[in-house]
């Protein structure tokens, strides 16, 4: 055949998609016998294939310790797919797809395993024309990162030739504080350039998260109001009825602050409050997000005590079932000082958001599942309709991130009748009903982006650093200060501790009821 063509020389692809199309590649999943592979990654890749977006020669190799044949791995994945794929399972598509799924058994620290992996990928490149493009997905605990990265480098798997690429996707948690994140970043950067490092945050793959930017910057009615002159405060809530389930040991070393706030909620907050980027390139968007994280007000231990509430769930009732308290959960220390709930008040110290409090709460064993952002606008002047003693109440714009993704706006309206009675009414947009077709899973979007080289929805190193700087102030006040704020308690199935309600009550506000 002829010489290797350049990567962008297929004119037949023009106009077939509104997004950059992925290149054929080898995807290698480290930790392939884990839950994430079965529940999310393989269903996501399969659905990309079913939608016709996965290049036909893309191969997927699972890398894990347990001995397993290609066939048994494929069989297990097929069973899981029937349960977890949003589009079900077509036998023809699965047959093609699974024929390109392989299993590579090796200890993560065994150099021979990587040498044989390299040989296998080289063979697949020759056989399928994947051109040396490789995407490594580290679906493993952070303690494994360093070893895997070092082995990848030793086997030359991070090296590319002739316009090919090698990228790595890293799952959270990315460090447990700024120092460990910095150390981890250093290790990653020795093996993969920053442009090839994709720190995944599945919240950013959700439609509503992406819609925050669209709503703000594709509509002219919101942006003029998007500042301290018109917005009274912001509430961000991430609630889930589940406890720690089987993740006790992980959760013990993490807690709600590290598990949810450092990554998911901070990323969402950035999209919500950043300045308009110069363009939609990955770095322009991430530059603006970074400015927000850097402007988050850092707290002294005393300020942490006043602005942050931490709590653990006690025994209670969720969904009609009695559930244990956190300290009685399996593989959780009875003396645990790990928070399962955190609520805090923060400020972004820049021109746009001067003095606007942002209240964030996240918790396990809450009454229901839901993540949402609520923007409370300032009330109208206290004359005319707002002259009544009770006041009319504010306009509230709500982004529902999950479940039932959508946007609603609470406005005041005259109630029909001869009397002048004003009531709030809700304008409600639901993705599922307005667009009729189900949204792709967040992992589908993010895997496609990584294969296409679009890092917009992935966190950059400096963003991660800055987010940890903010989180570290709180963790330090809790764990290293001589007089830390006490750990509050809330019954499972409630909306959190009284102290969290008091936090808002002190400002004359209340938490939203989801």
């Amino acid at each position: 055949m002829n010489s290797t063509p350049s990567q962008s020389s297929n004119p037949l692809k023009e106009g077939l998609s509104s997004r950059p199309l992925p290149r054929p590649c080898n995807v290698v999943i480290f930790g392939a016998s884990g839950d994430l592979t079965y529940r999310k990654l393989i269903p996501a890749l399969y659905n990309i294939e079913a939608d016709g977006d996965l290049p036909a020669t893309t191969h997927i190799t699972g890398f894990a310790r347990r001995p397993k044949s290609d066939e048994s791995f494929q069989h297990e994945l097929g069973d899981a797919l029937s349960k977890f794929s949003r589009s079900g399972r077509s036998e023809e598509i699965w047959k093609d797809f699974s024929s390109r799924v392989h299993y590579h058994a090796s200890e993560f620290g065994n150099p021979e395993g990587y040498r044989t992996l390299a040989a296998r990928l080289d063979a697949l490149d020759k056989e399928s024309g994947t051109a040396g493009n490789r995407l490594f997905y580290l679906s493993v605990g952070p303690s494994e990162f360093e070893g895997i990265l070092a082995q990848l480098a030793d086997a030359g798997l991070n090296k590319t030739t002739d316009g090919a690429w090698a990228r790595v996707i890293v799952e959270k948690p990315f460090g447990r504080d700024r120092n460990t994140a910095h150390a981890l970043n250093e290790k990653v950067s020795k093996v993969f350039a920053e442009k090839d490092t994709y720190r995944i945050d599945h919240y950013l793959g959700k439609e509503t998260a992406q819609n925050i930017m669209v709503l703000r910057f594709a509509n002219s009615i919101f942006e003029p109001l998007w500042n301290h002159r018109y917005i009274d405060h912001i509430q961000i809530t991430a609630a889930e009825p589940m406890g720690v389930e089987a993740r006790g040991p992980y959760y013990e070393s993490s807690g709600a602050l590290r598990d949810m706030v450092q990554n998911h909620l901070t990323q969402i907050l950035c999209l919500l409050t950043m300045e308009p980027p110069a363009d939609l390139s990955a770095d322009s968007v991430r530059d603006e997000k970074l400015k927000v994280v850097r402007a988050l007000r850092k707290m002294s231990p005393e300020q942490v005590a006043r602005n942050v509430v931490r709590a653990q769930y006690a025994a209670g009732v969720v969904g009609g079932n009695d559930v244990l308290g956190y300290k009685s959960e399996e593989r959780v220390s009875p003396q645990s000082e790990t928070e399962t709930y955190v609520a805090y008040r923060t400020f972004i110290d820049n021109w746009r958001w001067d003095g606007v409090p942002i209240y964030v709460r996240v918790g396990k064993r809450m009454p229901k599942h839901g993540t949402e952002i609520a923007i409370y606008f300032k009330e109208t002047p206290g004359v005319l309709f707002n002259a009544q003693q009770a006041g009319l109440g504010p306009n509230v714009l709500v982004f529902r991130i999950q479940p039932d993704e959508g946007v609603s706006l609470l406005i005041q309206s005259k109630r029909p009748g001869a009397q002048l009675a004003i009531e709030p009414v809700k304008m409600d947009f639901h993705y599922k009903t307005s667009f009729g077709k189900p949204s792709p899973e967040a992992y589908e979007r993010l895997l496609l982006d990584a294969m296409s080289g679009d890092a917009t929805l992935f966190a950059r190193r400096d963003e991660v650093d800055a987010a940890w700087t903010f989180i570290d102030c709180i963790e330090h006040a809790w764990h290293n200060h001589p007089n830390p704020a006490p750990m509050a308690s809330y019954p499972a199935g409630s909306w959190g501790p009284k102290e969290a309600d008091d936090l808002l009550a002190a400002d004359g506000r209340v938490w939203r009821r989801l």
Partner: protein
Amino acid sequence: MPLDETPLGLPVAFDNISKQLKALWDSDTDRTRASRLNFVVYCQGTDSLKANTELISRFVRTHACRAILIGDCPAAQPAKVSAWIQAHCHLTKAGAKEICSEQITLLAEGLSEEGVANVLMSNLDYDLPLNIWWQAPFPTLPTSPLWARVDRLIFDSQSWENPSQEKQRLDLIRDSGNPRMSVADINWTRTMALRQAIAQCFDMPQLLPELPLLNRLEVRHSPDARLTALLLVAWFAAQLGWMFDHASQDEICFRTPKGDALVVTLLHSPNDSVSGVTVRSLESSLILERTKGSNLFLATIKTPAGTSETHFPGGNLETTALLCEELTPGPRHRVYQKAAAILELLIP
């Protein structure tokens, strides 16, 4: 044959449509009505009103809208407008919530173009974009005020009886001074899955270098899908820089950018629409065939290195599915325009 009004819903007086729609929704205590666009289907005569109502019923499952179906009978006398209203409801995939869209059916008898436009425009949901599917020959001159209001003009070039004439009339409509209007050819969407599969095959490094070396293209199509096949050929030519040389009934000759001859053959097939494509160079070939009884294409790739087979999604050729795909925003307009320009050279 008398018109069977049953599928069209509740008969209402034309000047009472708004009031009757309001009454319809007032009884909907759960507030299930949703709308994000005006979807107008324009057809001539009454024969397709029932089939179009069924199509709208399927369409609104994914596109909540105000649907207006117009049957235009300009030669009928006396001049009058009959109207019917109905709601199409379904449960969302989310589960519980029922969503409803409204359909207004209008039978315009003995009206001028302008009169039909006025009848239609007085029933639009004015804040929402206007998508109109024109299921009839285009007018000789775009004098109707309707064209200034259209956001998306949908048509199916596969149904054109006189393609050359329809293309000229379409160009007049597009040049009539509405810069907002985009055109959407369902026939183009019909080739979408095929184009995606072909493009993906040529993404394979062993096949990509063959693109400039192609010397034969065969397209297998059903008798009624000749224009679909030609559109696909035009797409190849536009994207690969082939220059039209000459054509006979079933063979078209191009010159590649290098000046080499390239022969395209159109072959009749008993299967639906365009069912297969073969592309050849001296050393390699790609055969893409819709597999029987499934919604997939089977690609057989032969190169000096060997033969391989793989499946690709075959797309859904059902009209509602094509319509829904066509209404998805995307950047295909420019590529279509390039292909349509070459199509003009290929159609009689």
